[in-house]
């Protein structure tokens, strides 16, 4: 039975690629309002799980329930519409568009103007467009990117690109924000700023799912953690407990986790 405040329940998810089992019987439950960490050695299946949760892959087996409703086999845009937004491990911004426009694209799923409205410039279309621009500016400001609004996404420094991806994802008004290694390549200062941003996002009511290799960050932020290794769940629970779990330490080849 899922706890009443479960936002996302994935039950017995499995995914194969040819003969390779990328995920075997993985079950996770993310509670509303928490920060949920997903860790594991490289190749453990973390991004694969992400892709299944966000509709990019269809699971070969198992069940996905989000906000009380099944989302198995939904296409990515449908998943986004239901309220899951994500960022990518390898930053996938719209490189030829400005930072502002990138965030404006995020508003697509919550707005309606079509070809007719755009061409005829109806009052409703113009009002919606103004609202989109304004909201995009707000989100850029929220993520500390106001100064960069009119720069092309591909011209932004690396750290700003990562934050822009977050701003864009936030524009879709998600209930669950899934972040794939948001701190990758960041130095200590940037990571600290990211941590503050993520905590602020959570305080504003959005549930967070996090893949991260930066142990300090993920253990410091998360309420619950799940550890994957070779496509299987090998541990779950509170960060402190997971850190001491022998199986987890072994999976990371004998290193300590702090």
């Amino acid at each position, binding site marked *: 039975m899922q706890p009443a405040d479960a936002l996302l329940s994935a039950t017995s998810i499995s995914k194969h690629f040819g003969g390779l089992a990328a995920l075997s019987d993985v079950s996770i439950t993310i509670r509303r309002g928490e920060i949920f960490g997903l860790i594991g050695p490289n190749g453990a299946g973390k991004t694969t799980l992400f892709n299944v949760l966000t509709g990019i892959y269809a699971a070969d087996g198992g069940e996905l329930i989000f906000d009380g409703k099944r989302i198995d086999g939904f296409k990515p845009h449908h998943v986004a519409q239901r309220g899951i937004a994500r960022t990518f491990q390898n930053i996938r911004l719209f490189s030829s568009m400005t930072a502002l426009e990138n965030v404006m*694209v995020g508003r697509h799923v919550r707005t309606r103007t079509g070809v007719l409205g755009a061409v005829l410039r109806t009052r409703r279309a113009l009002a919606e467009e103004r609202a989109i621009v304004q909201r995009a500016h707000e989100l850029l400001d929220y993520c500390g990117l106001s100064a960069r609004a009119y720069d092309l996404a591909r011209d932004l420094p690396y750290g700003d690109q990562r934050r822009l991806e977050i701003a864009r994802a936030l524009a879709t008004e998600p209930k669950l924000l899934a972040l794939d290694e948001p701190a990758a390549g960041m130095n200590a200062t940037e990571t600290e700023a990211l941590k503050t941003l993520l905590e602020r996002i959570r305080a504003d009511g959005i549930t967070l799912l996090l893949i991260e290799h930066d142990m300090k960050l993920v253990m410091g932020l998360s309420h619950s953690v799940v550890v994957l290794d070779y496509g299987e769940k090998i541990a779950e629970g509170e960060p402190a407990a997971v850190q001491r779990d022998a199986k987890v330490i072994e999976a990371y080849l004998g290193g300590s986790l702090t």
Partner: protein
Amino acid sequence: MNFSATFGTLSSNPHWRRMAWIVIALILLAAPFLIEATLGRSWVRITDVALLFIMLALGLNIVVGFAGLLDLGYIAFFAVGAYSYALLASPQLGIHWPFLLLLPLGAAVAALFGILLGAPTLRLRGDYLAIVTLGFGEIIRVFLNNLNRPVNITNGPQGITLIDPLQMGGFSLSQSHSFAGLTFSPVHSYYFVFLVCAVLSIIISLRLENSRVGRAWMAIRDDELAASAMGINTRNVKLLAFAMGATFGGLAGALFASFQGFISPESFHLIDSIMVLCMVVLGGMGNVAGVVLGAVLLTALPEALRYIGPLQQSWFGEILVEPSDARMLLFGLALVLMMLLRPSGILPPRRRRMAPPSLVTNRATG
């Protein structure tokens, strides 16, 4: 002299802007007569064709420039629009419907074909999409060429003749008219019709570019997966691009049929698809002004090359290179050189229209 700075200050001054628009409008209205006076009537006809190509290029720009879908068979929509009009306004089937009905109908039929031809290509990308669309274009041409047996629909390679011009009541654009002391021959009259359509096409393209739909197209072009993850229904949005592009093409085709009075499958060859693609690419993909420029250049320059026939005659006493062949050689060369030297096109890929005017003069272009 810093051109872009001057341009920037001028364009931000509302008085100068209005003056500029009025001057441009006057020039455009007087153009056919000015051209006839300086270059002759044949060049007015070329101008008319250029206006049609502007529409075509803008249509393809939606598919290739905005949405990033490489369509090598675009001329098929032009053909569909032309044949739709021709079949319903000529002796071929004995039907003569009014143009007010047929022009939108041509556009609508083309839009339908856009969706039909676009649907199978949705999962393809890059080269493969290009080849499939090329294949579709050729399939349509072969059908147009051969649908004269067992039932004669398209009249095969001979094409359809005696197509009704744009006409209402007794007033026909295929006849000359006098007005305000000026003689409006058909090429003049059609100029104004095409001008209105071209201007509308430009306005629609610009409005689409800076809209929710336009951004969705560009997002798909830049990263389809990310676009999908952000909630964009990529299948529908791509089909919309095909449909919109096809609509422009179909309307241009219908107008072409009424203008020329005669169409055949030979007017809709692969090389014409490539020509329109080049207008888009060479002008600056996605950039509306660039595409218009590309259309004008690629219509006018080849025509200008016709003069090298008589030129060779006077220099060498014989024609060494047929003008049409020279045109193709130069075209091929231009393609190669453009891609090697300036692949983003003549005009920069996209102007950042969202930027406040004061920033326009400071930023480097490109």
